């Protein structure tokens, strides 16, 4: 039951999961630490709890007194069973405490929108898990973690709309220097939207200058929030001048949404939709067919890594739509190395389409090169260290193949080669 406890329960709302992970990491780490007898920075594992757990462990063995198992030695291998039970029981309770923490976290989220701020701390809802000692512990925790909450609060403040009204009255600032507007063109979408809310001159610049919106790149955290409707409005700001549109893992964008965006932006030449899982390859081919037949010059550069179900027919159709022949495709291609953020940077070369046939499994996927010198030297195509990420496992950090080297598996099931792992470990 404990193992089935979903960590997702710690994520209070879908939109806020970025903060939750932070909290989540921290707590998961601390809880595990307690469970395995490591230090207990917040004084969670009170003596009450251990005693209670120990009693529970003892009690559970009594009913089986008449069982044949009872004839066996109680601890044949000297494993100190009662201590183990205590530890496990403590561990289970820790998980319960986590559900308590979930409550706290929800409260923290509520504070984000309340006018009184973090300081307002009522005790309603604390008694969920019953015992007084639990409440005490929670209070202890509350005190010792004050700093932690403050930092979370900062993030919340930075990203939320909460209590902006009081700043409406002005403050001691002045009108912005015109030169500051020069940097608006260097801002990413989310920061442009923030800048728009700073003052009138920023707003007017952001809203009137379509050049800021000529190239739109959406990735985290906006990619999880943007819908067809918002994307259409956002691209509309370019007033028809949109040239490059990059949507990294925008899971809410549909074929129909993309069609409407294409219809209203005839100057688009670069389209990247890596990992947009709601787009179908069939729909994309149709959209592109319609777009490239009407507008000039049409899409020249397409990035579709991470889309499912691409067949040879789709691929050939796309190649012909992009006006690219296969030779041009390989000539323009720079070596591509695997990286955890590979989808973000998949459009820096000029090659018309990013996917190709994997030399090993013959499927149409993103194909990666190997940064290791000895692998690059292999000319023979059968031995060449070049394939999709399914055929050759690679380090998420440096992209090297890890067939014959030592490696570590990360919490996210990514692989890290020994060298990168050591480097990361030293940094921490």
């Amino acid at each position, binding site marked *: 039951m404990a193992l089935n406890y979903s960590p997702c329960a710690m994520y209070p709302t879908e*939109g806020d999961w970025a903060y939750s992970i932070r909290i989540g990491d921290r707590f998961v780490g601390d809880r595990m630490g307690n469970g395995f007898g490591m230090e207990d920075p917040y004084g969670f594992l009170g003596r009450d709890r251990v005693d209670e757990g120990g009693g529970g462990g003892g009690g559970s063995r009594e009913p089986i007194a008449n069982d044949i198992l009872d004839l066996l030695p109680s601890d044949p291998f000297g494993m100190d069973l009662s201590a183990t039970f205590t530890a496990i029981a403590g561990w289970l309770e820790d998980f319960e405490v986590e559900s308590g923490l979930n409550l706290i976290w929800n409260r923290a989220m509520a504070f984000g929108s309340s006018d009184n701020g973090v300081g307002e701390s009522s005790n309603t809802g604390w008694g969920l898990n019953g015992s007084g000692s639990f409440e005490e512990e929670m209070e202890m925790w509350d005190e010792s973690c004050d700093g932690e909450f403050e930092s979370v609060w900062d993030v919340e*403040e*930075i*990203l*939320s*709309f909460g209590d*902006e*009204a009081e*700043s*409406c*009255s*002005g*403050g*001691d*600032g*002045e*009108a*912005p*220097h*015109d*030169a*500051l507007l*020069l*940097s608006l*063109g*260097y*801002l*990413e*979408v*989310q*920061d442009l*939207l*923030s*800048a*728009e*809310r*700073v*003052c*009138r001159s*920023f*707003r007017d610049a952001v809203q009137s200058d379509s050049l800021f919106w000529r190239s739109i790149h959406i990735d985290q955290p*906006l990619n999880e*929030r*943007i*819908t067809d409707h*918002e994307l259409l409005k956002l691209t509309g700001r370019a007033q028809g001048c949109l040239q490059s549109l990059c949507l990294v893992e925008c899971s809410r964008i549909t074929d129909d949404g993309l069609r409407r965006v294409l219809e209203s932006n005839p100057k688009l030449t670069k389209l990247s939709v890596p990992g947009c899982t709601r787009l179908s390859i069939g729909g994309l081919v149709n959209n592109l067919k319609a777009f490239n037949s009407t507008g000039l010059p049409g899409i020249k550069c397409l990035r579709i890594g991470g889309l499912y179900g691409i067949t040879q027919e789709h691929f050939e159709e796309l190649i012909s739509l992009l006006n690219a022949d296969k030779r041009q495709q390989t000539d323009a291609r720079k070596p591509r190395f695997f990286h955890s953020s590979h989808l973000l940077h998949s459009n820096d070369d000029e090659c018309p389409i990013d996917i190709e046939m994997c030399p090993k499994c013959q499927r149409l996927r993103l194909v990666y090169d190997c940064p290791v010198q000895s692998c690059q030297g292999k000319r023979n195509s059968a031995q060449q260290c070049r394939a999709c990420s399914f055929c050759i496992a690679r380090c998420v950090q440096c992209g090297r193949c890890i067939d014959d080297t030592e490696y570590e598996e990360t919490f996210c099931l990514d692989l890290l080669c020994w060298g990168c792992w050591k480097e990361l470990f030293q940094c921490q």
Partner: protein
Amino acid sequence: MASTSNSTSSKIITLRSSDGEVFEVEESVALESNLIRRMMEDDCANNIIPLPNVTAPIFYLVIEHCKKHAEMKDNKEKKKELRSQGEELLKSDPHTYSNLMEAVNYLDIKSLMDLTAQWLADFLKGKSPRLIRELLKIKNDFTPEEEAEILERNRWAFD
């Protein structure tokens, strides 16, 4: 520190800031500015080149950045150093930083423009409108209605 001549071979250009201070700058440094380059090409720079939009302290900053930028091309350490200096200035004195950007823009020094604007963009990254106002000392001149309108329009991006 107005004079920057240390090589006998390079030509020295004389420039005058808006507040009357005269600077002697190596031609190679001065030519980073497209404005000065155009003036020299048009041959309207025989004597002292006037820079009516740039004050002496700001021009000094520009020259300093130009030189460091030339040095940093193949030096990562210098690049870091210049960047942290830029960020320091931005945090401590956003007004001077704005003047620096304005001067760089006026003198049309493309490389430095990219650099200073990018620093500012990085500095603003992920910050709330209120924090941006505080840090750059900008007054919020929106009416509550205007603020609510933009808020409503962009709500999806911030909720």
